[in-house]
């Protein structure tokens, strides 16, 4: 085991897969000589050179589309969209092309492409550099959607994403890059569609995405001191979704909170909650709750930003209300 930063875990996954498979290459803005805006590709250009670590012009549609075309014809590109907010510019290539071409051509195409990006608020990046837009891509059939919350998950899931034969949107969190965690020295993969029970509990289930996993753990710690036992479940991949693990947790606790930074309205949390209602209503002692981002653009000033993004205190309050 080594203690690695999340960004190092990402980089190690990329490096290992590039060594394993000569078809894997990276493209994106500032990923080469500069090492990536969040330094997740640092050192890879020095190691693999211009051909396999490709700095691009500032052209998200071309980055995504070129990755799709290369993936269709025998390569395994990992394309970086620097901020998930910028995915708007690349969205046709991701949602209309990568996601659909296999189906549209009757299954002929294999498109092994990974779109790496990062989302999340918490450092005053304001409305166009802090959104969490996983619901947009999760909505489109044909895309797998991954949100690693720890260095361990980031590495194992990214290696799986690169080996997957279909398009994967891999969403990192900008405030997790500097988080350290244990990562095995030996190789491992984490399959998609397997949620992780991060903390066991008996009174309330919190299903948390991305950085909200850390906040949910803090809330659980605080609530434990009051004698409330919280189970924290991280789906890790929202497409495919491990509903079974979530349902088993709700069977035990009878209470469900879903939490993510993304806007509440039409968020992934709504989808998870309704799937639990459809399949496990009998187990629910109380209606499920969403503790998610407020339905406003992300504001700049820290005090306002903290207000619109769910905090530990919001989770604690919501749990207390559910168990009262």
């Amino acid at each position, binding site marked *: 085991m080594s203690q690695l930063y999340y960004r190092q875990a990402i980089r190690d996954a990329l490096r290992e897969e590039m060594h394993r498979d000569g078809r894997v290459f990276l493209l994106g803005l500032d990923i080469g000589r500069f090492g990536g805006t969040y330094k997740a590709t640092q050192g890879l250009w020095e190691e693999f050179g211009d051909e396999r670590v490709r700095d691009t012009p500032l052209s998200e*549609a071309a980055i995504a*589309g070129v990755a799709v*075309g290369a993936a269709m014809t025998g390569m395994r590109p990992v394309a970086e969209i620097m901020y998930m907010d910028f995915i708007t*510019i690349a969205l046709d290539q991701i949602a209309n092309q990568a996601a659909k071409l296999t*189906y*549209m051509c*009757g299954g002929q195409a294999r498109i092994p492409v990974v779109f790496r990006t990062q989302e999340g608020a918490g450092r005053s990046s304001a409305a166009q550099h802090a959104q969490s837009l996983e619901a947009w891509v999760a909505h489109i059939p044909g895309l797998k959607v991954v949100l690693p919350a720890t260095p361990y998950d980031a590495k194992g899931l990214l290696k799986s994403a690169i080996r997957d034969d279909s398009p994967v949107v891999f969403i990192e969190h900008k405030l997790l890059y500097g988080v350290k965690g244990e990562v095995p020295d030996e190789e491992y993969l984490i399959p998609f569609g397997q949620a992780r029970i991060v903390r066991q509990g008996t009174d309330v289930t919190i299903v948390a995405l991305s950085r909200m996993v850390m906040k949910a753990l803090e809330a659980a710690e605080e609530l434990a001191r009051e004698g409330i036992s919280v189970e924290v479940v991280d789906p890790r991949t929202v497409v495919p979704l491990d509903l079974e693990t979530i349902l088993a947790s709700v069977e035990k606790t009878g209470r469900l909170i879903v939490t993510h930074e993304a806007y509440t309205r039409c968020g992934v949390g709504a989808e998870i909650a309704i799937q639990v209602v459809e399949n496990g209503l009998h187990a629910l002692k109380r209606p499920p709750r969403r503790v998610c981002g407020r339905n406003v653009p992300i504001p700049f000033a820290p005090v306002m930003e903290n207000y619109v993004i769910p905090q530990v205190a919001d989770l604690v309050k919501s749990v207390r209300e559910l168990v009262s």
Partner: protein
Amino acid sequence: MSVQTPAPSGILNAVDPALLVRIHLTMVRIRHFEQRAIELFMAGELPGFLHSCLGQEAVPAGVCAALREDDYITSTHRGHGHVIAKGLRFDRMMAELYGRTTGYCKGKGGSMHIADFSQGVLGANGIVGAGVPIATGAALSAQMRRTGQVVAAFFGDGATSQGAFHEAANLAAVWNLPIVYVCENNHYAVSTPVSRQMRINSVAQRAAAYGFPGVTVDGNDPLAVYEAARAAVERARSGGGPTLLECRTYRWMGHYIGDPATYRPAEEVAWWKERDPLATFERKLSELSICSQQEIERVHEQVRAELEAAVEFARQSPVPAPEDALTDLPQ
């Protein structure tokens, strides 16, 4: 995969007669396929939209004659001509237009999305301009795999106003990719004439912004198209990078079948129809004694017969089961 030997360069009478015959056959195939598809569509046999490329036959015929079998193309919503020229079969195309299981896309794509990866047809795109970055990616892949393959990306004049086009063309220039951007300038983006789409005199001028050559040719002359495409393909294959090839042509029909196309002056349509690319080419072939009138007529007959067999094949082919809609997603 067979590798086509390059045709000798030069004017019509310097070109290998076999190549002229092949280009002619391709144009006849496109012409009849499009005419028959219109009839079937008007008779209510085909669901969906139909975007006809009648009148534009010389462009795909000329460009694809300059490609190797293992080269790639990307196509558009007006794509039947491109995929016929790249070697796709009438029967499976027609079956796709009918939405049958025997179609190239098992009825999941339809007229706008015919693809055959085994023939290098990387799909026809319903989003204008969206095939251009994909084609550029295929060119990157060819460059990285060192296969010597070249990509021809087909698109219309309208697509050159899309950001995706500009982004991809610029990237291809920066990376010196083996690609030919083939603009079929048919002078209208749906109803909007080129004069209201851009302030430049030719689409080819756009190439200057990326730093690679832009060439304009008569898109109704298959040999002019072929010669320009051959030069561009050679340039791409030998590491010279991209070319923008603007082929000026005209679609005889409206944007889609059913579009009355009242935005076009009747004299303009008549002017272009007088310059029918197929009839003009056939006159030349006949004048130069490359084909007799009889031989030309025989080609038409053969193509018509093949087409009728394809229509029958499509009509007799199974309709998909509703739940077939749930298959062929990425695994």
